[in-house]
């Protein structure tokens, strides 16, 4: 976990969102949701920074992407291809 400024967190959120919208990181939706909520909560509480877990987020995206592929493989096998 690391403390970063709200501005840094916003840049990261923007980057993740755009990457997700462009189809690069389809597994990022839960991370985007959590980070967006965290930023909103921090702002509402009048905080200037936020505690985040970079590697946890990256692994969460990886796990979600892997799960999606596994589901696609299962579906393809069901369809016999």
């Amino acid at each position, binding site marked *: 976990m690391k403390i970063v400024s709200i501005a840094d967190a916003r840049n990261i959120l923007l980057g993740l969102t755009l990457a997700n919208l462009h189809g690069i990181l389809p597994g990022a939706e839960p991370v985007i949701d959590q980070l967006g909520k*965290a930023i909103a909560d921090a702002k509402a509480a009048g905080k200037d920074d936020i505690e985040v877990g970079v590697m946890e*987020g*990256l692994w969460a995206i990886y796990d979600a992407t892997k799960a999606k592929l596994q589901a696609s493989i299962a579906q393809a096998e069901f369809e016999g*291809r």
Partner: protein
Amino acid sequence: MKNILMAVLALALAACASTPGGTNQVLGTATILMPAIQGHGTLGALGDPEYRAGPHVTQMSVLLHRTDLALNRKQISSAQAKEVLAATEVAEATVRKAVAAEKAGRSSEATQLLLIASKQIGNATQILETAQKGGVK
């Protein structure tokens, strides 16, 4: 604020840009996004040894996504997708070992493991690209 998950676009862009033979879509998107985002500066501000595995994790995410797309577009078979997944999981195990070594203060071991992981990710990428070139089998 605890237990907040996030990731860094710079890592994603670095991973996309370094993906051997990555799709034009991914590389093109990375190029389009690059000037719009201050991702690199953000990553620099977060600089920490434990983040060294970040690009590897993101590369694996992008690779699995590309495999998913290829499978759903019927460019590869489920068996071929499984091969890519298995090869990626080998790299995943190595990256997880590297992260553990870094946390335990064994930085040089982590470096060696990350080098191995890079090669393993390259192998997995090669499997996907060979399958795409060869068609569904």
